[in-house]
């Protein structure tokens, strides 16, 4: 361990990739055992795949939790078939109200902390960053390995919390005090909430180690000729995401420890004087429940960009590849993700418009929130510009990428309603919000993740996924997810609130049962249709046709490496001559122009200068 740390440091200190380190790294690999190669691996690709498999497993767990929610909303208090025994065995499969609040809490927790964030940054970030910038590995491989293994305590804590007395956390994924702090307030506020806080803390540590590594790697380890403005959008997005994470996460971690203090050692950061609930002993308190909300959203609003920016980057790369045409407005795209990152830190208050925060602040946050819609709009227009005048190949990856654009338009526009404070008074905490963030996170990010998997699968495993079954999977997912999430907008228009185990005893919401049953059935089918993906994925790992280096005829540097790349990634020293989006360039006869292909001899290049596009 120590020797490899020193080795890492040396490599880091040298800061450029040279042939010597390359060779040294190769030797290093051959001497390692199975355990070191596949389990405690230092190789960024293995770590990326470890993240990918872990997060996909948690993706199915999170999905099943959502099925429980949908069952209860469609058939309140009826025993749930199949899953019911697992979720609510003692109650004969009937979802009890405290279990329902646990389902909504843990569905969000699992999806956000164990799926979206680690699959984007952990899986794709790890796998792609060194390959796309022409490095042989991450700057600090040991840190990289630890960032994966620090997820395991989190997996353990959250997994175990389902089995402790009172069950897993029930205070919502936002974990608002006093509900989350006063142990008597809810069954899930017993050990379940403590384990939840510990789990989130470990996810935070893992993400922090990852983000430091990503920043260092992207700044220090780019191959010769790979200037910042020749980086693919995926890398730019990962870079900005890493910065966001590094600056926002400490706040959540600190707040988490403060809440642990309130729960376990009697501090009173988030409890008012004399706070009590459900006949609990009175707390000394002296704190403020709203303080938690400020600290939580100071992290969690930037976090929603952590959950979407890498997806945007991946979509940009896929769109350009299969439109066979350069990305429209590369620099405006870079500036807009930077803009999102900057503005992302001053909009957290829009989660708190009706929280009791000073309403004057609502005005400022409304203006900043409106303005953050702007970079997203610019990106959307540029994606449309990328498609304009291309020769679009409708591969599965491309279909998912296009659906990201189409769905992101909906998710982006519905955000404007919430940014408008007076309208938010009515739609706050209703299904309008649920529709909005699922359009961004499921119909957006998850589509980009599927697209990314179909696109980079050949590089990950050296084989192709089945395109026809991929398209069946796409079509079912695309149609069904719209059946699930689009009607939620009109549910929200009627004021239908989130997190209600049985809303139908309210006169206002009684008529919404049939629509909810429709949504639930679409959700069950959506979940079932993912089986096609799972089978295609595993079948293709073993039996898919061999892919070769560059099956998509793409420009990116990762496609010049072998598939799958060996230890140390490149079997040649990559030298970069241009950006990654030179499709259909008049300079070459092919319709693509790899970043490493030396330009034809022109007076310019004869002088040794690589032409800059």
């Amino acid at each position, binding site marked *: 361990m120590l020797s490899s740390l020193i080795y890492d440091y040396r490599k880091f200190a040298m800061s450029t990739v040279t042939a010597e380190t390359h060779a040294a790294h190769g030797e290093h690999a051959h001497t390692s055992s199975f355990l070191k190669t596949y389990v405690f691996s230092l190789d960024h690709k293995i770590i990326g795949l470890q993240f990918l498999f872990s997060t996909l497993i948690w993706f199915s767990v999170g999905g099943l939790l959502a099925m429980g929610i949908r069952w209860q909303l469609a058939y309140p208090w009826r025993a749930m078939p199949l899953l019911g025994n697992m979720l609510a065995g003692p109650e004969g499969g009937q979802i009890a*109200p405290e279990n*329902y*609040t646990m389902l909504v809490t843990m569905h969000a927790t699992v999806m956000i902390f164990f799926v979206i964030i680690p699959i984007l940054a952990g899986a794709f970030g790890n796998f792609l960053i060194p390959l796309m910038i022409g490095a042989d590995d991450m700057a600090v491989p040991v840190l990289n390995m630890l960032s994966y293994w620090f997820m395991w305590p989190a997996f353990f804590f959250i997994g175990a919390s389902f089995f402790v007395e009172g069950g897993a956390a029930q205070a919502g994924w936002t974990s608002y005090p*006093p509900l989350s702090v*006063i142990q008597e307030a809810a069954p899930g506020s017993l050990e379940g909430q403590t384990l939840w806080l510990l789990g989130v803390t470990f996810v935070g540590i893992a993400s922090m180690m990852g983000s430091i590594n990503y920043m260092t790697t992207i700044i220090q380890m780019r191959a010769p000729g790979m200037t910042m403005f020749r980086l693919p959008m995926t890398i730019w997005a990962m870079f900005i995401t890493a910065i966001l994470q590094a600056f926002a996460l400490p706040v959540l971690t600190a707040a988490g420890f403060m809440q642990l203090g309130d729960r376990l050692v009697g501090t009173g950061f988030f409890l008012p*004087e004399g*706070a*009590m*609930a*459900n006949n609990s002993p009175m707390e000394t308190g002296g704190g*403020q*429940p*709203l303080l938690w909300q400020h600290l939580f959203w100071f992290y969690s609003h930037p976090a929603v960009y952590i959950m979407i920016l890498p997806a945007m980057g991946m979509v940009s790369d896929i769109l350009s590849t299969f439109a066979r045409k350069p990305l429209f*407005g590369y620099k*405006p795209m870079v500036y807009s993700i930077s803009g999102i990152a900057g503005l992302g830190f001053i909009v957290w208050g829009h989660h708190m418009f009706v929280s*009791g925060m000073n*309403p004057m602040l*609502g005005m400022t946050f*409304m203006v900043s929130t409106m*303005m953050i819609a*702007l970079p997203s*709009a*610019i990106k959307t*227009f540029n994606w*449309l*510009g990328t498609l304009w*005048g*291309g*020769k679009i190949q*409708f591969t599965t990856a491309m279909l998912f990428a296009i*659906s990201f*654009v*189409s769905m992101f*338009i*909906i998710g982006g*526009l*519905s955000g*404007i*309603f919430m*940014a*408008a*404070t*007076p309208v938010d*008074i*009515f*739609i*706050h*905490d*209703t299904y309008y919000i649920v529709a909005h963030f699922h359009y961004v996170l499921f119909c957006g990010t998850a589509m980009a993740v599927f697209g990314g998997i179909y696109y980079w699968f050949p590089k990950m495993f050296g084989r192709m996924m089945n395109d026809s079954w991929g398209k069946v999977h796409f079509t079912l997912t695309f149609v069904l997810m719209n059946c699930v999430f689009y009607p939620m*907008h009109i549910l929200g228009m*009627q*004021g239908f609130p989130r*997190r*209600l*185990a*049985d*809303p139908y005893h309210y006169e*206002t919401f009684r008529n919404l049962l049939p629509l909810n049953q429709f949504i639930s059935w679409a959700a069950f089918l959506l979940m079932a249709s993912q089986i096609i993906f799972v089978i295609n994925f595993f079948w293709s790992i073993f039996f898919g046709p061999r892919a070769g280096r560059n099956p998509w005829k793409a420009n990116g540097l990762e496609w010049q490496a072998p598939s799958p790349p060996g230890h140390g990634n490149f079997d040649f020293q990559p030298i970069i001559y241009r950006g990654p989006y030179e499709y259909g*360039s008049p300079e070459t006869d092919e*319709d693509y122009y790899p970043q490493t292909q030396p330009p034809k001899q022109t007076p310019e290049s004869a002088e040794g200068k690589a032409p800059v596009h």
Partner: protein
Amino acid sequence: MKHFWSFLFFLVPVLGVATFVFAPHFNIWLPRDISEQGRTIDNLFMFILYLTGAVFIVTECVLFYFLWKYDGKSNEKPVIFSHGSHALELVWTIIPAVTLLFIAIYQMQAWANDKMDPPAISYTCEVTGRQFNWDFRYPGPDNELYTQDDIVRTDGKLYLPVNEEILLKITSADVLHSFFLPNLRVKQDVVPGMAQKMWFKGKKTGGYDIVCAELCGWGHYKMKGRVYFLPRDEYDAKLAEFTAEQNTMTVEVPEEE
């Protein structure tokens, strides 16, 4: 089918608009509005809906058109080798920026009316959220809270005079709740240790739902109340009835075993 994928994406704007057009026919829409600021909020909602709806239709149709026209199977022309357009970037930066800023400024007055400028009247009632019930405390004949003649009701029914400015003091006894009246378009989280004001004017008599809109524990779903708007004379009679009931109420103390 030729152009299958482009037409699949064309379904998005078609069915997207159709959902919003047909929803009112299935009686799913903004709930009946009985307040003054509700109308402003509904108008702002519809304003944003039309505006974003237009952007939605245009961008999704452009997406469809590009997918259809530039389908690699049918498009014979060479690709347009373009890295972008500075002029276009300026256009689609400035126009949305101005529009968004306009929306923000346009909403400010409504926000100020609803949340920042309470009417200068005494409290009509104090509302306290607790797991899992809404409690109401009326100031009684002396119009002052926390005096001997206060009327305390714990049956989850709030009676208010119709067509009169109402000022509520709202707070929580334990965890966070949110006092949400869908038909009046008002919502405010209640926070323990913080007293907040809420004001509105109900314009129609009748009973309407009070919903808790902030997760407050296992019984969150059943933290239901009703608000009844009564003509002034009926309202006074109701409060007098409550006072009488309170004054004559005897509490049976069970004998110790």
